[in-house]
């Protein structure tokens, strides 16, 4: 005898349990990033000598990186809208642009890190900026490195979604995985907005 059981709906996200699961993950991740930023603030506030970030860090380059991530968030949400409307070519195009934006961001961050690590900085008493040479360097590389790992994970994640999408797995009736991936990507963008402000501008 076959007994059919109805799958219970997620109480907060009727579309899928996966969406609720992603939200729970992001809330925990927000605590991780928030703790790092709070720790950065506490160390900086209590420090007698803290370089002016803009005298060491490249704000114009990072501003462009911020713009890049914002654009990739827009293309991500456009990709989701496209698959909801059943427009598979537009979905693939926008998602590919999102992946490209994330990859470019990582490349620029690698470029930025290389220059920070290999060059001597007058604001750091002629020292290079590494994890061990100064507290400023430690906090900077931990924060941006942790975020960079999230971006890398997001690029891989979205690439898998793109491949699945190109194979026709998603449709207007079945687009939850795209929405869930989009939530992660927007979170990565949101965190960068905060990091850019607190680490680079203030």
């Amino acid at each position, binding site marked *: 005898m076959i007994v059919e059981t109805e799958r219970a*709906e997620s109480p907060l996200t009727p579309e899928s349990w996966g969406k609720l699961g992603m939200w729970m993950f*992001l809330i925990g991740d927000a605590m991780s990033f928030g703790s790092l930023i709070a720790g950065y603030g*506490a160390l900086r506030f*209590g420090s007698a000598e803290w370089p002016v970030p803009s005298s060491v860090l490249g704000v114009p380059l990072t501003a462009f990186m911020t713009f890049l991530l914002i654009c990739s968030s827009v293309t991500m949400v456009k990709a989701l809208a496209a698959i909801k409307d059943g427009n598979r070519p537009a979905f693939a195009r926008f998602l590919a642009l999102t992946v490209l934006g994330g990859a470019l961001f990582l490349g620029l961050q690698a470029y930025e890190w290389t220059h920070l690590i290999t060059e001597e900085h007058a604001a750091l008493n002629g020292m290079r900026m590494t994890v061990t040479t100064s507290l400023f360097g430690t906090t900077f590389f931990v924060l941006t490195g942790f975020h960079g790992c999230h971006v890398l994970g997001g690029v891989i994640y979205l690439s898998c979604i793109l491949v699945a999408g190109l194979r026709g797995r998603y449709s207007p*009736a079945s687009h939850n995985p795209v929405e869930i991936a989009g939530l992660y990507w927007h979170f990565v963008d*949101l965190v960068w907005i905060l990091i850019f402000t607190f680490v680079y501008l203030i």
Partner: protein
Amino acid sequence: MTGEAQAGHGAAHRHPNYMAIFWWLLALTIVEIAAGMMLQHVGRGPARLTLICGLILMAAAKAALVAMYFMHLRFEKRTLAIIAGTPIVLLVFLMLMLVPDALRTLHNRAEAGSASAPAAAPTPAP
């Protein structure tokens, strides 16, 4: 049931004007950068504090726009939005709890600095 729920959710709201949100984000970013550049030329005082508060508010506004419209939090159930907002409360609490430590560090540094100021005079043996 899931399909119906999806259709219901999809019909519950049209797509927000994503490009309008993008332009707002871009404008706020440009203003932030300008404020950051001004901050370099402003000394300690009310002007500096105002710029810092302005930068924090702009960052919060940008984060809210991304959360509400790109992550569709505005169109989700209110309970989910409240749960998603709990880290903000906890993090504000965390920052407030760290303030005494930071102030103590500053105080200790100031005391150490004033104690070592007459460095030429040798310290007497105990």
